[in-house]
């Protein structure tokens, strides 16, 4: 980069190191990073690698807000942050982060006022505030929510409001830290559309994100942090095709796993492919023909694929094998306010079975989990655990048979150390010490927390706190376990850990239900998938069929995994999730293997 470009840099970081108070290890070490105006730079890396700290350093929050020792310089639009006040940066840098709820200011009684708040602080004249807020509400499709209270909105809506409230301030630089980790796929796509629009309008974007499809699709440059240092840097293709990437705990875009699997079967592609569209293009270069040769079926880059309706799928309500342990028998539930959240749901689960429940936020998944766990009692129908109706027990008694890992670990955690937290419920049950120690050790081992046992849970990242609650539920040794969004915010190590846990629980004969928005995870690791939409079960089938039920997928508004998108491109019939079959199909369609 030449001198003139450097002078005009949006962000210029040299030799940045930072250590939090009371910490022995620096969170950032020797970071050098220059971001050009209008560039989109994504920061990736394992949890704890220093991504958020770097984002906060750019916003001036480190070290002015989160104190600590800082070396090196951070310049934003030519101004050294060491001199100015953190408040002054507001005009230059917009900052959005993970938690939707705490980003609502708490003073605005309407979404409209929420958007106007920042502009008022900037001293924008009222008429200009009105026109800018109106325009932003339209651009972000938030007009229907304008008069609602921000606190009454769902998490996804709040996050959109938070982003819009920053976008409306029109700062030239946006720092966005994991904006979608708590959101469902549809809202995630909507969020990225908004960020992309702002970027197209010339704004500089610095994004911290785990969703690699989005990172690969939008970024000009990807920075991989590991243990506080920049480990890799380059275009998305350069970084993701570097074999070291996964070693640093980063998940790859799904298309790259497909590409790799195809390469193992002899398809040597002429170039890199970061998305399914590119992968299909590469395969076509090898001579493969899509379905209905000539006009290739269009592959959307993200979200839902709407296809013509199919006959309704067969719904199986029986376990794939074995006697049922959990039976949900025609259960409906209406909240005291009169809102029905679950409508005539029936399903059964055997010991050792692991099923996934997918569907949009608000489809009734969490309510169903609470009905199984006994926190809620069915308005009609019955839930039976090992033949006993849950109405025979109190919620706490049911909980001894059905463990439930809440979506937000902070709802459950309160002990001073990880060890105390995991042991707490066991003490309350009055188990002897030897037994407690055995169970706690096993649970910590399985969740990878053995060397964190004396840490304070609130000092651990949210993604690790989730494993603390998982460990405390596993230690209860219940016959049934429910996991609510365990994949949210997890890095590669976390996902692999989760997979190992699910596998071990099945091996121990537990019935496990996992609620998740991560479709790739579902397609790879669950034999059976239940799709919910609008309070009901739409489909309950072996997973290899689930994602081919186009009408169901469209209605539930969930993503089709990359594998299915590729299969759809080359093959009209459903071939399950077998890579071998897909390779055969592609080979038959004329592609040359290397």
């Amino acid at each position: 980069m030449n001198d003139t470009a450097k002078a005009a840099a949006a962000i210029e970081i040299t030799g940045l190191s930072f250590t939090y108070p009371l910490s022995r290890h620096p969170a950032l070490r020797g970071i050098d990073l220059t971001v050009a105006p209008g560039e989109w730079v994504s920061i990736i890396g394992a949890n704890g690698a220093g991504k958020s700290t770097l984002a906060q350093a750019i916003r001036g929050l480190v070290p002015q807000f989160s104190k600590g020792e800082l070396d090196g310089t951070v310049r934003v639009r030519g101004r050294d942050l060491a001199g100015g006040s953190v408040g002054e940066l507001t005009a230059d840098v917009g900052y959005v982060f993970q938690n939707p709820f705490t980003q609502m200011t708490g003073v605005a009684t309407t979404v409209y006022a929420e958007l106007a708040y920042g502009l008022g602080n900037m001293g924008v004249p009222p008429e200009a505030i009105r026109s800018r807020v109106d325009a932003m509400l339209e651009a972000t499709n938030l007009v229907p929510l304008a008069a609602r209270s921000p606190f009454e909105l769902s998490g996804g809506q709040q996050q959109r409001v938070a982003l819009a409230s920053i976008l409306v301030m029109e700062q030239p630089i946006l720092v966005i830290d994991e904006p979608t980790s708590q959101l469902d796929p549809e809202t995630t796509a909507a969020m990225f559309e908004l960020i992309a629009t702002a970027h197209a309008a010339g704004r500089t974007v610095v994004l911290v994100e785990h969703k690699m499809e989005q990172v690969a699709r939008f970024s000009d440059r990807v920075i991989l942090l590991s243990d506080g240092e920049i480990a890799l840097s380059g275009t998305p293709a350069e970084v993701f095709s570097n074999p070291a990437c996964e070693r640093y705990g980063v998940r790859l875009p799904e298309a790259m796993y497909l590409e790799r699997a195809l390469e193992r079967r002899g398809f040597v592609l002429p170039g890199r492919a970061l998305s399914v569209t590119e992968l299909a293009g590469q395969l076509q270069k090898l001579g493969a023909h899509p379905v209905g040769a000539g006009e290739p079926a269009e592959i959307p880059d993200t979200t839902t694929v709407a296809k013509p309706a199919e006959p309704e799928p067969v719904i199986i309500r029986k376990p794939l094998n074995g006697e049922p342990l959990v039976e949900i028998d025609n259960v409906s539930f209406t909240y005291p306010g009169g809102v029905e959240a679950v409508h005539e749901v029936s399903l059964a689960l055997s010991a050792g079975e692991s099923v996934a429940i997918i569907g949009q936020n608000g489809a009734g998944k969490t309510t169903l989990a609470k009905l199984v766990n006994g926190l809620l009692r069915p308005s009609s129908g019955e839930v039976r655990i090992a033949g006993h109706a849950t109405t025979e027990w109190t919620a706490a008694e049911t909980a001894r048979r059905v463990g439930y890992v809440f979506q937000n670990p902070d709802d459950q955690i309160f002990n001073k150390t990880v060890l105390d937290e995991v042991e707490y419920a066991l003490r309350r049950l009055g188990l002897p010490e030897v037994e407690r120690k055995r169970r706690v050790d096993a649970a910590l081992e399985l969740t990878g927390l053995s060397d964190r046992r004396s840490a304070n849970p609130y000092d651990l990242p949210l993604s690790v706190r989730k494993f603390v609650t998982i460990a405390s539920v596993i230690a209860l040794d219940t016959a049934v376990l429910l996991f609510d969004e365990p994949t949210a915010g997890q890095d590669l190590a976390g996902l692999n850990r989760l997979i190992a846990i699910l596998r071990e629980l099945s091996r121990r004969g537990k019935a496990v239900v996992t609620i998740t928005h991560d479709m790739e995870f579902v397609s790879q690791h669950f034999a059976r998938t239940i799709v919910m939409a609008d309070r009901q079960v739409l489909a309950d089938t072996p997973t290899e069929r689930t994602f081919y039920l186009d009408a169901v997928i469209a209605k539930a508004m969930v993503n089709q995994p990359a594998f299915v998108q590729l299969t759809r491109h080359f093959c009209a019939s459903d071939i399950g999730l077998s890579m071998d079959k897909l390779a055969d199909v592609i080979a038959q369609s004329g592609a040359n293997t290397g």
Partner: protein
Amino acid sequence: MTNKTSVFNLMGLLLIPVGVALDFALGSLALTLKLPIFLDSVGHILAGALGGPVIGAVTGFLGVMTNSMFAADAVVWAFQGAAIGLVVGLLAWTGLLKGWPKIILSTVIVIVLSVAMSAGISYVVYGGFDGYGISAVRAALVKAGMSLELAIVLTSFVAEFIDKVLSMAVPVVVIGLMSDRLLLKFPVGPALRDLELEPEVPSAAPSATTPGAGSGYGTYGDN
């Protein structure tokens, strides 16, 4: 440096709404759990302990004001909340909430203060009979021949004792559960505990180990 102070102020300032809301939430938690206590001063005691005397006093005043919707004269009793918040803030600030002997002393001070305030307000404003349940007992004691002053102090003590012991205990326990790192972020946090450098963690580096033989994440082709 001025910037740091202003941001620090923001943390203290934001303790006020949270403290007031905790007064309310803990009060209703005591109702949900059907406990025979109020617990509606936990929020301002906590705010005082973490934010200092001024934050504590403001939280106490607003806390009692907003949470006593069923008392038309909440504004009068709000001075009791303000006094408790103020004094807890001073105690925390001067290091009297560090270590059990000092904490017990502080609890005694808070109990004495809150008895004095509630008895004093009741006596000065209403001559001792403020129209709440406890003043009926007071009237009975006076009828039975006890002096008015003694009856007021005695009944106030009975009403305040257990509630204030628990209302001090809950914040003290929760502060004990807070990590050093979180405590450090609040204005008075460092005065509540001797903060230590965190222990050496074996390995901070992430390892993307696959979950054993077979398929880890994104392992198409093994099916």
